[in-house]
């Protein structure tokens, strides 16, 4: 029983970061109706920005997280403007393929700048807390809290502000939103900025817990995409639920299958979701 509770705790902690990235993926999808896989590299960018700000410049973690969000959002907007926007008229498949190319370019720019070596942020290693027989990593717990707060803030932004309403309007019907005076281009840029920013924030939070290396985003992307599909592409609450469920499923799978096959869970979920509920748990665009 204790093992199941421990796996569930581990799954929730890991799932919170997956949810954050899946949220970024789905915000972009909801507004632009494109799958932007370059968020894998943007996760990496966030990790390296955190490394620069925290380790190289010696600034506090909180500042690093904010800068990572802003820098990743900026990189997302610029790369979208240069490489993806011109291809949108050729359809979502073209954009998705191009985003894989953008992903490779961004990852290798990072590699050219920093090499392939692993780097750590300037945070002391802390022993786990032991709570009711469960081991909880302090950094993972902080990450969970930060991810949760950010997700709540994002809900508030989308639900209660004019910007959020504009985004939801464009997501629902871009032509009608345009007629009502909402500039869909600006809303699209904002969606990309927020989506990429959340991916970058995932990168720095993950780096705080593990390490920074150029492949860190690519190692996450399958689980992130699985979370987005499971929750419903374009769905904001769906991304959160999907990310958390994937995190839980990957950990709980260890009860009945070897750990070597943990990555198969992501593929399995995508196949099952597309076969039996292709609109995801929450359906698409329910935000």
């Amino acid at each position: 029983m204790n093992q199941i509770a421990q796996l569930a705790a581990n799954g929730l902690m890991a799932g919170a970061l997956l949810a954050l990235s899946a949220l970024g993926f789905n915000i972009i999808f909801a507004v632009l109706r494109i799958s932007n896989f370059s968020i894998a590299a943007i996760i990496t960018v966030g990790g390296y920005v955190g490394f620069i700000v925290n380790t190289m410049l010696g600034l506090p973690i909180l500042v690093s997280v904010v800068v990572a969000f802003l820098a990743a959002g900026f990189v997302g907007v610029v790369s979208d403007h240069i490489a993806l926007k011109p291809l949108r008229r050729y359809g979502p498949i073209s954009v998705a393929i191009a985003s894989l190319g953008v992903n490779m370019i961004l990852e290798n720019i990072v590699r050219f700048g920093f090499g392939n070596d692993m780097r750590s942020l300037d945070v002391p290693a802390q022993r786990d807390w032991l709570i009711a027989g469960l081991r909880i990593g302090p950094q993972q717990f902080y990450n969970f809290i930060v991810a949760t707060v950010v997700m709540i803030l994002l809900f508030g932004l989308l639900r209660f502000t004019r910007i959020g309403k504009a985004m939801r309007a464009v997501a629902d019907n871009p032509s009608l939103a345009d007629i009502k005076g909402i500039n869909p281009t600006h809303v699209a840029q904002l969606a990309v900025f927020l989506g990429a920013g959340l991916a970058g924030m995932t990168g720095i939070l993950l780096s705080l817990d593990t390490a920074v290396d150029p492949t860190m985003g690519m190692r996450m992307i399958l689980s992130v995409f699985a979370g987005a599909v499971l929750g419903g592409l374009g769905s904001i609450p769906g991304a959160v639920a999907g990310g958390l469920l994937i995190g839980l499923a990957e950990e709980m799978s260890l009860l009945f299958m070897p750990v070597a096959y943990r990555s198969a869970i992501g593929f399995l979920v995508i196949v099952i979701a597309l076969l039996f509920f292709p609109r995801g748990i929450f359906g698409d665009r329910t935000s």
Partner: protein
Amino acid sequence: MPIWSSLNRRMLIKGMAAVPALAVASRHARAAINGPIRLGALVPLTGAGGVWGPKMALVQKMVVDQVNAAGGIGGQHVEYYYEDDQTNPDAGVLATRKLIDVDHVVAIMGVWSSAVAAPTLPICWQNKVTMLAIASSDSLSALPHQGYFIRTNVDVLLQGQEIGKFAISQGAKNIFVLLAQTPFDIPMMKGLTGTVLAKGIKVGSLVYDSRKTSFRSEVDQALRASPDLILLGGYPQDNIVLLKDLYRAGYSGKIVGTGTGVTSQLIDGAGKDVVEGLYVVRPSPAVTSTAYHKLQKIVGMDTPDTSLCQCYDQANLALLSIALAGESSGTAIRDNIRKIGGPEGEPVDNAVDGLRLLAQGKKINYEGASGPCEFLPDGNVARAFFRTLRVSGGKLVNV
């Protein structure tokens, strides 16, 4: 000093001084080698092996540049082509096909990952191209490679046995092995268990997926076995996460890693507290050899790792084999590499000196930076050195 700036004037002057001797005395090679000599390398510039690949390629290019500065082989220029295998078998196969079909290389050197070597080795032997590999999975030398496989690294079975001896020396009673899913899992376990089980030591293991970003549950599973020694059998990217998770979990037993999995970058990146006391059992370069000292100067590093040493040796060995054969082909390398690897002949530690001696009709014995470079019929090294190190105060020190 940056690796790429270290081909200094002194070396070039030495190389130039050797030009007349090489030009005069290698007439037989000139007669037989038509056109440039094309050497290839399949190195991991990206992916899990990306920590090593770029430097590996640079070292080999420096060796080739030295030989070209000394007049080439038989008056022929040596061309060096390298491709990124991305530490990925699919990319490795495509890159191998490019090196063989487009660049027409006669040797593919620097193959680092066993997962990449496994599908690319058959392409090499079918095209009579010699593979000079670092990849250490035992299964590679067991393939029907017809001699077109030479490994400068120590095979994993031997490494497993050496780690087993280390565990016995440390008085371990219960070992747990955390292995990344790679072709070297089975020989590592075979070597380890073959050594320790007879001593009554208990061994548990799990194979994990190294593409994940967190290994807390894997660590939990390992700790449930209450081991007094944990062997990390993965790559640095996952080992750094595993080490942090073991530290957080309060594990107080011994931890040992392989030479591939524990690098100076990992030690710098993981944090002092996390890696303090970590042991590494690894094949050791021939640190007292003159080739090793030459390599230190070339790369501008105090302790070039075994991958760099092996790449240096591979380039020298391939070039000397071609010169001895007077023919630029994979078959020539295959048939002559054991003749220049000793143990008989005048000792040499670099291709330029070796070419001069060969040109004088002398027999040579190449003594490398990675080891004696004597090869068995199956392509494995006949002799190897091991070293055990321990992290103390953030630095690796000899045990």
